[in-house]
């Protein structure tokens, strides 16, 4: 493929995809010049064919689930059913103005109401709000609810959120967003939380704890009930980061583990697309304690019709999190997926995701790779550490990642969680075949062989991607964040 120039570089003054705007420009004679724009915005001036060709070509530069195995740990890159998209994009769903009367949106509202019920069933919780727009916003909502609960009890001093060191960055960041302090506790050698450290950490300032279970270390926190007792006894509540809910779907319920609130990344467990960065949906589910505080709006049912419940109906709510209702179109996609799967299908998600992860981890262990927690059962994901290879050859986890790209695989998550050196966090998901997993094992073995044989060659990877290894330092030092035409004009 030829280099794909920036669309700005393909622009010529006066060119237009003219069917998309009015044929003439309406005269604006009622407004003073002082409120009007002087120079037109510097948008590219291109034809429709140029646009189609440019973005079609750009798309081909991406790896994606639709083209590659993408075992990005913690991110759950599994097949996104095309029908979820097709149905969510039916004109009858797309045309809904968010402020139209409820009577006009019964088809949407019914679907969202059903989704709320399905999510209650999947978590064991008693209340759901669909409005958070991603996992991180679900976390925000959860911690805000915990705070509101404490405050409603008149307990104003609980400002600490306990977070294990393996936690995703959004957990401590969320604590800060909510005005809390994040208290980090260490992980024990077996991957479970260090219970003694937890005991030391809790106290009258404890608002709650955020846990991912299975954790981002790819193991199930076995002493979760004990943890719940400790935190509850100290007066705190438990937050379940549901990024890994796919690992236990239909096998265990966050409610059963003692959690008070959970967010679910629908774009992970319920297979809505990642879209190159979003949108997602980070719905929250709570037990009855926290129900009054759920963010609004929520879908209710009144006299056989579905209605949006808002401030008047939910006076204790932490409030709104978005201009309207959050990412409705994503919610519809998740709903379609859940209806396709049904109860059995959901249970199979956790079963086969775990099967694939354990198969891959067993095969990699047999091939001599270092599994981070070899004594543990892998959940839906697991970690290998390349520390030894790095020591012996100088090849890093990053080198392995880049070499995988050349072999037609997206890389696993690298250097996360932070506590495992030179790690790859590998999540194959249930939608990949055994044959694909075998090919992945073979690729990793080949790369390791290359590391020992010719690490210089390995460090030249990737060689088949549209660009070779990029200079990140330069990117951050010599900031170039927007295009400026060299000549000042576009030509």
């Amino acid at each position, binding site marked *: 493929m030829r280099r794909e120039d920036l669309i*700005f570089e393909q622009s010529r003054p006066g060119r237009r995809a003219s069917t*998309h705007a009015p044929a003439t*420009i*309406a005269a604006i004679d009622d407004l003073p010049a002082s*409120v009007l724009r002087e120079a*037109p915005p510097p*948008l*590219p001036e291109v034809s*429709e064919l140029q646009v189609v060709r440019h*973005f079609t070509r750009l798309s081909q530069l*991406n790896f*994606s689930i639709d083209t590659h195995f993408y075992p990005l740990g913690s991110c759950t890159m599994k*097949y*996104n*059913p095309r029908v979820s998209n097709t*149905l969510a994009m039916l*004109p009858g769903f797309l045309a*809904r103005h968010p*402020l139209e*009367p409820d*009577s*006009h949106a019964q088809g949407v509202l019914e679907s969202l109401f059903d989704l709320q019920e399905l999510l209650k069933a999947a978590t064991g919780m008693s209340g759901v709000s669909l409005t958070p*727009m991603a996992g991180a916003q679900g976390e925000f909502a959860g911690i805000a609810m915990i705070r509101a609960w404490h405050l409603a009890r008149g307990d104003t001093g609980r400002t600490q959120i306990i977070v294990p060191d393996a936690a*995703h960055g*959004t957990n401590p960041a969320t604590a*800060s967003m909510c005005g809390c302090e994040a208290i980090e506790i260490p992980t024990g050698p077996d991957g479970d939380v260090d219970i003694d450290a937890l005991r030391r950490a809790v106290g009258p300032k404890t608002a709650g704890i955020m846990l991912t279970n299975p954790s981002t270390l790819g193991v199930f926190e076995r002493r*979760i009930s004990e943890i719940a007792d400790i935190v509850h006894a100290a007066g705190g509540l438990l937050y379940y980061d549901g990024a890994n809910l796919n690992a236990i*779907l239909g*096998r265990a319920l966050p409610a059963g583990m003692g959690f008070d609130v959970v967010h679910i990344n629908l774009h992970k467990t319920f297979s809505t697309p990642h*879209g*190159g960065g*979003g*949108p997602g949906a980070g719905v929250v589910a709570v037990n009855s304690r926290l129900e009054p505080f759920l*963010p609004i709006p929520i879908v209710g049912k009144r006299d056989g019709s579905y209605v949006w419940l808002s401030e008047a109906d939910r006076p204790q709510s932490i*409030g*709104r999190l*978005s201009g*309207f209702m959050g*990412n*409705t179109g994503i919610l519809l996609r998740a709903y379609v997926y859940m209806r*396709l*799967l*049904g109860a*059995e299908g959901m*249970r199979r998600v956790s*079963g086969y995701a775990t*099967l694939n992860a*354990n198969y891959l981890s067993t095969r990699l262990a047999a091939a001599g790779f270092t599994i981070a927690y070899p004594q543990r*059962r892998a959940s839906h994901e697991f970690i290998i550490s390349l520390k030894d290879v790095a020591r012996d050859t100088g090849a890093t986890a990053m080198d392995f*990642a880049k070499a995988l*790209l050349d072999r037609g695989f997206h890389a696993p998550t*690298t250097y996360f969680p932070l506590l495992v050196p030179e790690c790859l966090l590998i999540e194959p998901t*249930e939608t990949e*075949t055994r044959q694909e997993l075998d090919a992945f094992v073979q690729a990793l073995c080949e790369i390791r062989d290359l590391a020992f044989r010719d690490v210089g060659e390995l460090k030249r990877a990737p060689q088949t*991607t549209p660009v*070779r290894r*990029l200079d990140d330092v330069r990117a951050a030092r010599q900031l170039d*964040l*927007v*295009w400026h035409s060299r000549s000042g004009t576009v030509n």
Partner: protein
Amino acid sequence: MPFIPHTDDDLAAMLQTIGVADIDALFDEIPAALRVGGLPAVPPGMSEAAVVRLMRARAARNVDSLCFLGAGAYEHHIPAAVWELATRGEFYSAYTPYQAEASQGTLQLIYEYQSMLAGLVDLDVSNASLYDGATAFAEACLMAVRASRNRNSRRVLVARYLHPLWRKAAETLLRGQAVELVELPSSGGRTDMQALAALDAQDFAAVCLPWPNFLGGLEPVDELTDWAHGRNMLVIAVCNPVAIGLLKPPGKWGAQGADIACGEGQPLGIPLSSGGPYFGFMACRQALVRQMPGRIVGQTLDIEGRRGFTLTLQAREQHIRRSKATSNICTNQGLMVTAATIHLCLLGSEGLRRVAAQCHTNTRALVAALTSLPGVDLQFSPYFHEAVLTLPQPVAPVLARLAAAGILGGHDLQADFPELGHALLVCATELRTAEDIETYRQAMAGALGMAVAT
């Protein structure tokens, strides 16, 4: 098994490799007391055909109308190419571009988006999106508080006629960090410059100016910008991205321009879709870039010296800086930005200007048509793209009658802005024709109980 490719042979071989008897055995680390046998409240799975039939019926249960409702979400033309391209699997099913070399498509696209968006608002840099207009507004307030030279202030001034729902969302999001929104004095549907003197201006980190404001009003942005800058405040522009195809961009406000611009990206090619997914945009002056939340893409070189794109300034973000990050945002609204970028290319600057101009002209025609009815009056002018009408009766029942006649007649302002009386916010985008407007005029006459010449 929907979406699961394992054959019985695969399953058996894999279990044997692992050394367990069955899949259930893989969950042996979950304490027995915590295990459940299934999800009894979830119905059985359905075939795709059955789900298609279900969802088509649901879609058909919704009711389409002729739309004169804006109030933060606008029915614009979206070229067919936009979503055909944006939903290509390679965009649709990719993750955040962590492995830059394998994601140049998404990364170059975001770089192009950042360039267009920064150009549109006339500021130096843009991020790769936030969740929506409301959260972008809240994040802008937090950013201003972090960046402000009025170091101790956690208070932010806001024009009264900013979207009331955004205000509410921002209050939720700012509460934790004890950042407070304080309303600017207003009169005549916009900020009252005269009344500013009463404020103790030293106490504020920033001022937020909607453009146009929720009522379609044009705030005195030049004066307010200079006034705020004179008091060490940052200026946050909260703008409609289509409107600034024609209106003065934030970067040109006052002597120095606004510092931060944010807003709702929906008008740039995003379907109404019950309120989401949309996307929030944010741009700022170069000096503030390290305070900006959200992902940012930068241009760099590869080892062969070829141009390439990568995520940059990640030290601002939660996955590096954790509790000290500029925001907890991780997943953003990437696909919406993909669509908006394509949309902006298809419009170009002239197209965007024309759409903005046509929206305004159509709204003027609508105002003229409706105010031709006795008792219907325009409350404020100038206005842009949206306008406030006074009705001779309470608005809610009139809107209900219009809705029954197939028309979304606008937004009732009574609850949020009681000072405006029987006030109705109306809007006619470029899609509304002269016949549509006439249809509305007749229906409004009917809804108000008048006979009208057709």
